[in-house]
C-alpha cells in the first residue's frame, strides 16, 4: 500500500514536470525601460533615483530551424552554397539552417523515406520530373502569392511550364540544362573533319571514322554512351528522336509514341554502330569523353566545370553543336529543370518561403540573385531567372555556354507527368537491352511502349 502511494506520487510529480517542460514557451520579449532621473531631497542627503516613465515591449521572432536538402554533395558544390546560407543567417539571426546534401541517385529515395518517416526537410531542391508524384501525394506546399507573382514576372515561359503541374506553380525554377552534341575538335580535325555532323547520316559516318581499335578492341569510341543511368540513356535518345521529327508521348498522355519509325531509326543508329564496333557500350560515361576515350557525346551543360578542369586536350578543344537531324526534323535539344519546393508538412513554411525567395531574388538592381551566382559559378548551369541571364551574361559567354544558352531558346522541355520516372526507367531498360544485343531494336521499343502505356493508364 505504502509503495503504491509512493509510485502514485512519483507519477504525478513526473507528469507535472513534463507538463511544465512541454508547455508553450512564452514569447520572448525585449523590454526596454525608458527612465528619467529624479532628485529626491531627503533630510540628510540628496538621492538620485531612476523612475520608469515608459516601457516598450518588442516581440522577437521565435527561433526557427530550417532543413534544406539538395543533391549538391561534393565539397566544391557544398561550400559555395553554405556560404550563401551563412549570409542569410547573418541577416536573420533567429533562423538556423541545416544544409543536407546527398548524391543525385539518393535524392529521390531520401525525400520519399524522410517523408514517410515524418522527418521531411523543410525545403528541397528536386528534379521537375518528380513534381507530379510529389504534388499528387500532397507533399508540396503551394507558394504564397508574393512568390507566385515574382516567379510569373521574372522567369522564361519554358521554365514556368517546367514547374507547373495541374495548373499550379510549385516552386522557384533554378537550373536549366539542355543536351547538345559535344565533340573533341582535335580528334575531328585529325580525322579530316572541319565541322561537326549535322545529320544522323553524317553522325553515323563520323562515329565510325573517329573510332580507333586495336586487336579487335575499341580503344577510342566515336560516340560515348552512358548506360546504367536513366537520364544518360533516355535524354540523348529523346534529343535525337525529336530532331528526327518523332514524339515521346502524346500531348494528352494517352499513349507512348516513341516506338515509331523515327524512334527505330535512332535506336538502330546505336545498335548498328555497336555491331560494327564503332561504339563500345563498355566505354560508358561522360568521364570517358573527358579522358579522351570517346570523340563525341550527347550531354548536358552541367559537366562544364569537369571539362574545364580535366579535358584531355584542353577546354579550348571542346566543341558544341546542335543535335543532328534526320528526316523532317529540326535540331531539338531536350531541356530539363530543377526547382526549389517547400514541404507541405513543414511547420515553418513561411520562413522556408522567405529563404527560398531570398535565394532567388537579385541582391540589387542589375545584380544577380544568390542562386544565379551559384549556378553559373559552381555548376556551369544556365539560370532560369531572366535577370540572372542578363546580369551574368559574361559567365555564359564562352563558346561552350553560348551554344547551350542558344539551344535553350528552342529546347523542348522533358514531359512532366505522373509516372514519368517509371516510364523513363522502362525505356532505359529496353534501350540497354538492345545495346547489349539482348533484344532487337524493334522488340525493345515495342516492349518499352507497352510498359509505358500501362504506366500512363495507371496514372490517369
Amino acid at each position, binding site marked *: 500500500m505504502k509503495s503504491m502511494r509512493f509510485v502514485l506520487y512519483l507519477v504525478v510529480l513526473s507528469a507535472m514536470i513534463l507538463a511544465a517542460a512541454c508547455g508553450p514557451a512564452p514569447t520572448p520579449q525585449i523590454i526596454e525601460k525608458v527612465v528619467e532621473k529624479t532628485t529626491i531631497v531627503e533630510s540628510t542627503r540628496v538621492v538620485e533615483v531612476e523612475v520608469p516613465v515608459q516601457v516598450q515591449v518588442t516581440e522577437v521572432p521565435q527561433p526557427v530551424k530550417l532543413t534544406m536538402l539538395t543533391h549538391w554533395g*561534393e565539397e566544391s558544390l557544398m561550400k559555395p552554397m553554405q556560404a550563401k546560407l551563412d549570409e542569410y543567417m547573418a541577416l536573420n539571426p533567429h533562423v538556423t539552417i541545416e544544409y543536407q546534401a546527398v*548524391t*543525385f*541517385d*539518393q535524392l*529521390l*529515395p531520401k525525400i*520519399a*523515406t524522410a*517523408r*514517410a518517416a515524418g522527418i521531411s526537410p523543410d525545403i528541397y531542391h528536386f528534379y521537375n520530373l518528380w513534381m507530379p*508524384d*510529389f504534388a*499528387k*501525394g*500532397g*507533399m508540396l506546399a503551394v507558394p504564397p502569392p508574393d512568390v507566385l507573382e515574382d516567379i510569373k514576372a521574372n522567369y522564361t515561359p519554358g521554365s514556368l511550364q517546367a514547374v507547373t503541374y495541374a495548373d499550379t506553380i510549385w516552386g522557384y525554377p533554378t537550373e536549366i540544362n539542355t543536351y547538345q552534341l559535344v565533340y573533341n575538335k582535335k580528334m575531328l580535325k585529325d580525322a579530316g573533319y572541319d565541322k561537326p555532323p549535322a545529320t544522323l547520316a553524317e553522325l553515323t559516318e563520323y562515329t565510325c571514322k573517329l573510332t580507333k581499335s*586495336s*586487336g579487335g*578492341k575499341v580503344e577510342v569510341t566515336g560516340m560515348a554512351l552512358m*548506360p*546504367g*543511368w*536513366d537520364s*544518360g540513356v533516355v535524354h540523348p535518345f529523346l534529343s535525337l528522336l525529336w530532331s528526327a521529327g518523332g514524339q515521346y508521348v502524346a500531348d494528352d498522355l494517352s499513349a507512348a509514341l516513341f516506338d515509331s519509325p523515327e524512334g527505330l531509326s535512332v535506336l538502330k543508329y546505336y545498335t548498328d554502330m555497336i555491331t560494327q564496333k564503332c561504339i563500345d*557500350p*563498355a*566505354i*560508358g*560515361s561522360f*568521364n*570517358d569523353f573527358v*579522358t579522351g*576515350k570517346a570523340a563525341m557525346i550527347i550531354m548536358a551543360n552541367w559537366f562544364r566545370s569537369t571539362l574545364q578542369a580535366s579535358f584531355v586536350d584542353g577546354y579550348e578543344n571542346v566543341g558544341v553543336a546542335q543535335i543532328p537531324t534526320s528526316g523532317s526534323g529540326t535540331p531539338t535539344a531536350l531541356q530539363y529543370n530543377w526547382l526549389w519546393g517547400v514541404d507541405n508538412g513543414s511547420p515553418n513554411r513561411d520562413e522556408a518561403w522567405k529563404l527560398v525567395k531570398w535565394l532567388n531574388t537579385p541582391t540589387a538592381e542589375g545584380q544577380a540573385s544568390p542562386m544565379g551566382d551559384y549556378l553559373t559559378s559552381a555548376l556551369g548551369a544556365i539560370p532560369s531567372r531572366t535577370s540572372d541571364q542578363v546580369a551574368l551574361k559574361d559567365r555564359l559567354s564562352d563558346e561552350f555556354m553560348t551554344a547551350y544558352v542558344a539551344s535553350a531558346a528552342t529546347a523542348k522541355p522533358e514531359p512532366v507527368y505522373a509516372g514519368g*520516372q*517509371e516510364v523513363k*526507367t522502362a525505356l*532505359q*531498360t529496353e534501350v*540497354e*537491352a538492345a*545495346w*547489349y544485343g*539482348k533484344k532487337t531494336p524493334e522488340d525493345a521499343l515495342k*516492349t518499352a511502349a507497352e*510498359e509505358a502505356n*500501362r504506366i500512363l493508364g495507371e496514372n490517369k
Partner: protein
Amino acid sequence: MNAETASEHSGGSGPESEHSGGSGSESEHSGGSGSESEHSGPPGPGDAQVQPMHNTPAPGNHTPSGQGHAEFSLGIPNPRRRKRINNKAMWAFIFIAPAVIFLIFFSFIPILFSGWISLNNWDLITPLNKMKFMGTDNYTYLFQRDDIFKAGLRNTFVFTIAGVTINTILGLAGALLLNSKIRFRTFWRSIYFLPIVTAPLALGMMWYSLLNKNFGLINNLLGYLGIPPQPFLSSPDTALACIIGIAVYQYVGYYIIVSTAGLQGIPQEYYDAAAVDGASPPQSFWYITLPQLRPVLLFLIVTNTIGALQVFDLVFATTTGVAAETSGGGPANSTMVIVLHMYNTAFKFFKMGRASAMAMVLFVIILLITLIQLRLLQKRD
C-alpha cells in the same frame, strides 16, 4: 562448434553420448538405498548397493528411514514446490520478455504490415487509410509483366549458388590448410578474416575503383602484362562474375574460421584408427572429416544462403558508381538483384505495394530453400 564438448568424451559424437547407459538421474529403481542411486536402470548383478523395497533398514545397514522418498509421494505435487516452479517460470518470462517484445514489434508486426501493403497500392506519400486495395494484382504483375523482377531472381539465384558453393569449397580447403602445421598460422588466420570486418559498402566502393576499366588498378596491372583492359563491371558478360568474386573475397574468411573450429573438434583418434586400418588421406577426408563436419557445413550453407539471397549493399556499391550517377543493377541489369529492384521500386517509383509483394515472395523462397536444405543436409538419427 562442438570443439569443447567433443574433446571431453572418448567415444561417439554429439552431446547425447556423454555418459554410458541411459539418461535420467532420478532413481526409479525398485531397491532403495538411503540415497539416490548414481546410475539409473535396474540393478545389475554384483551391485552391492541393492536394498530391500521397504524402508526397514537391513541389519548392519544404516539407512535413515524415509530418506530418498521424502519428495515423492504417490504423484501428488508439493504445493510449495509448485509455487517455486511458477515463480521461476514467471521470472524466466520476465527476462525473455524484452527480446520477445522486440521481436514482435520489429519483426513480426512489420512482416504482417508488409504483407498487408503487398495487397494494396501505396505510394509512400498518401495516408495509409487512403490506399487502394489491389488484391493479388501486385503479385500477378511481378510474375507476368516485370522483366526486371525475373532478371533479379535469376541473378540472385546465380549469385547465391555460385557464391555459397565456391565459398564452402574454398573455406574447407583453407581450413584444412590452416589446420595443418604451417608457419605463422595465427597471422594467416587474421589475414583471411580481415575482409569480414570491412563494411560491404566500403568494400564495394573499393572494388568499383579497382575494377574500373579506365583508371582501375587491376587494368593497369594487366596493361603491364600486355593484356588489354577488361570491362569487368562494365560488361553484362562479366559484371555478375565480378560481383561473385568480390563476395567470395569478402566471406571466404568466415567460412575458413568456422570450418577450422569444426575440424579441431574432430578427435585425432579417428584418424589414428583409420591410419591403423590402412586408410589413405583422401579416404580419411571422405569417411571421417566430411561426416564429422556435417553440422558445421549445414550451419554455413544455410545461414549464408539466407544472407546471399538478400544481397544488396555489395551490388549497390559496385554498380551505382562513386558519384552515384548510375541507378544500380549493372549494364543491361546484368547484376540486378531482387533486393535492389525492391529498393528502386519502393523509393524511386513509389510503388510500395509492389515492393512489399517482392519482399513476401523473397521471404517464401528463403523459407522453402532453408527447409529443403535442412532436410537434405541434416544427419539422420
